[in-house]
């Protein structure tokens, strides 16, 4: 059967051509293709991993942000409280200061009034004395004749003034 007997020529050429084909294709085709495929697969795997990492990072950042916001709020509250406190203190201090000053002023005014009053009184006393003297002079001038009664009267006046 010719169909089943391999021809020596075709065996020779098939061996040569197939070996050459495998050699050339391996060196210039399969190797670069395999490398390209592998590097692309690596790239895709890396990209997926990087995306996963980025996602985690964003998650973390979100958490950090929330923390930051919470902290900021707390700080703001504390600051506000302190500010209120300081403001109140300043107000209280101012009030105290003011009242002190007013008290001082009132006291000074009182003292001035006292001195003025005293001066006025003295003046009044002097005026009264002068008036009394004038009266006395007039009385004396009028009642020069009843010596004794006038003397008593003057005495009486003076006594009254002293008690005043």
């Amino acid at each position: 059967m010719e169909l089943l007997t391999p021809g020596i020529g075709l065996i020779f050429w098939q061996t040569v051509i197939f070996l050459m084909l495998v050699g050339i294709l391996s060196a210039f085709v399969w190797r670069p293709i395999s490398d390209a495929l592998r590097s692309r697969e690596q790239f895709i795997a890396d990209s997926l991993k990087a995306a996963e990492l980025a996602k985690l990072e964003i998650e973390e950042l979100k958490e950090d942000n929330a923390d930051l916001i919470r902290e900021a709020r707390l700080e703001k509250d504390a600051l506000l409280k302190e500010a209120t406190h300081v403001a109140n203190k300043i107000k209280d201090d101012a009030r105290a200061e003011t009242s002190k000053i007013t008290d001082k002023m009132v006291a000074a005014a009182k003292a001035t009034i006292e001195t003025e009053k005293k001066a006025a009184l003295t003046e009044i006393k002097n005026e009264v004395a002068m008036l009394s003297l004038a009266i006395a002079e007039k009385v004396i001038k009028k009642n020069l004749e009843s010596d004794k009664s006038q003397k008593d009267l003057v005495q009486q006046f003076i006594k009254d003034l002293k008690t005043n």
Partner: protein
Amino acid sequence: MPRIPKLSNKVLIISILSTILAFSNVGNLLAADDKNDVFNPAELINHHILDDYLWHFWDGHYGTLYLPVILYSSDKGLIVFSSHNFFDANHNILDYEGYRYEHGHVSSVDGGSFIDISITKNVLFLFINATVLLWVFFAVARGYKKNIGKAPKGIQSFFEPIILFVRDEIVKPNIGPKYERFLPYMLSLFFFIWFGNLFGLMPGAANLTGNIAVTSILAIFTFVLTIVNTNRNYWKHIFNTPGVPWWLKLPVPLLPTVEIIGIFSKPFSLLLRLFVAITAGHIVVLSLISLTFIFQSYSVGILSALITTFINLIELLVATIQAYVFTLFSSMYIGMAMEEEH
């Protein structure tokens, strides 16, 4: 493949109708057929599936391509000449330089031995197959150089899934972790067989992958790769198969004998399967076409054309399946040879 059954239904209906038509005509045909020019389908089929020193396309002066004959013998040395020298102007066969051409064979007139490495139809087809493979896959490889880090384009995107299929579905699972060393061989094997099968289906093409010399060499390469890569565990399995009763191994080494036969029957099955599948396909197609000329009837012609079309579609499938199977079994045999003890 949801399309094939649909198509086969249609083909079935058409073929049944045509068959009825055909048989209604047979009576006519038998009465009319008394020509001297007897058609011999066996000769036609053999002519197509066997190798030859010329490539016949059609009858006439330019219809035949005469291929170079290369012969070497110790007494005459190396001779290279065109096979046209075997024919005279009236297409009668002549002897040339002491060699004779008959029935697609070259023999020595004096009966001396010689080596024949002629560029026959199959060898020329082998060159064509190799050239197309190189041309196509250099284009594919260029695509990878051009589109680094980008999606594949054009011819590259057509072959990439096939390359990945061979790598991920055939080679990787069957050879195991050391698969990368065998990947270039397996890819070359797959595409050589696939392209050869497909080219063989074209009209007038040679039956390259259905030639036993070609399939033998492919099987021998796989066999050599298997033997070179065997490990201790593989030989232990052959000579002292674990897990079988001792009386199968001693005193008559029954199982070792079977295993040793197995070493050789594996590549033998490879070469036979591809050869048979492709040659049988060609024979079926050619037989169906021959029916037309046997019956010399238009209705048989229509019928056989339809069936041939359908068979050709199946052959396209077979071409791919055989390439897949050859590569798959090659991978499995190498994988088995390298398997570690477990």
